[in-house]
């Protein structure tokens, strides 16, 4: 790795960019901004990876995280109460413990980074990262590669089962009523209909 001064300057600026955008993710009100701040943080880490001569991983980070953060933005806007931060919001609980845990985590890992002695075997300059990864994937750790495929398949099936409302037999919940309390009695579903209403985490006030 050529350790020119230019490399160090870019590294430091990217490091501050990554940390600041990472911190802003939890400080901003608008959900779309939060997910795209996280995207900027990932891109900064991706560029650092390229500086570390792992070109493929860095650029792969870009497109992988771009897709994931778009999906993250879609889902955050779908489920968060005040998606665009028009009313400042802080949906935060156990703030103190969280800050404490964060700092402790940082200190422990930082101490380990400073104190521990790691073997100093820098990557050789003429290594082609993509080719070595390819040979590795198709060679020794082919098992990991194929099992990753299997895990991805199970994820796809799990995702489809959990999230889609209509299966190929039509809407899953249509007409299905819990059985009556006494045999043949009216289904219990109707009773808990209104009770279920208020158990949802926040009050619905239908105002018009």
């Amino acid at each position, binding site marked *: 790795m050529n350790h020119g001064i230019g490399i160090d300057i870019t590294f430091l600026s990217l490091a501050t960019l990554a940390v600041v955008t990472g911190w802003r993710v*939890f400080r901003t009100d608008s959900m779309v901004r939060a997910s795209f701040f996280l995207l900027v943080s990932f891109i900064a880490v991706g560029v650092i990876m390229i500086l570390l001569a792992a070109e493929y991983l860095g650029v792969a980070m870009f497109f992988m995280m771009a897709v994931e953060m778009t999906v993250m933005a879609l889902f955050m806007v779908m489920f968060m109460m005040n998606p665009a931060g028009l009313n400042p919001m802080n949906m935060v609980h156990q703030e103190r413990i969280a800050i404490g845990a964060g700092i402790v985590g940082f200190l422990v890992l930082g101490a380990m980074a400073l104190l521990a002695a790691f073997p100093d075997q820098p990557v050789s300059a003429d290594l082609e990262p993509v080719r070595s990864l390819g040979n590795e994937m198709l060679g020794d750790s082919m098992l990991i590669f194929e099992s990753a495929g299997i895990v991805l398949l199970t994820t796809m099936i799990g995702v489809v089962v959990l999230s889609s409302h209509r299966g190929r037999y039509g809407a899953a919940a249509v007409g299905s009523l819990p059985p009556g309390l006494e045999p043949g009695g009216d289904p219990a579903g109707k009773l808990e209909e209104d009770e279920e209403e208020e158990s949802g985490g926040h009050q619905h006030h239908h105002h018009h």
Partner: protein
Amino acid sequence: MTLTTLLLLAAALIGIGIYGALSQQSFVMLMMGLELILNGVMLAAVAFWAFSGAGAPEGQLLTIIVMAVMAIEMAMGFALVVAVFRGKQADMTESLTGLKH
């Protein structure tokens, strides 16, 4: 750009991720925290690969597997959030008290 500075950056990202994951009330923001932690882990993995792993191919493969973990965790997380929201119109972690005795 030495190993220690990289690890310090990774530690900072993991610290912010832990703060985010523990402090946020809604599922989706909690998953943002997890993503940030995994971001720090990936950076550390590449740093070790570049500085003390002599460019061992397993290092890169580990990073890709961490990326796969991040993708799978995110997909399953959102699928669960959709299933929960369909049932109980709730996106707050507090409101899920189903398992509590």
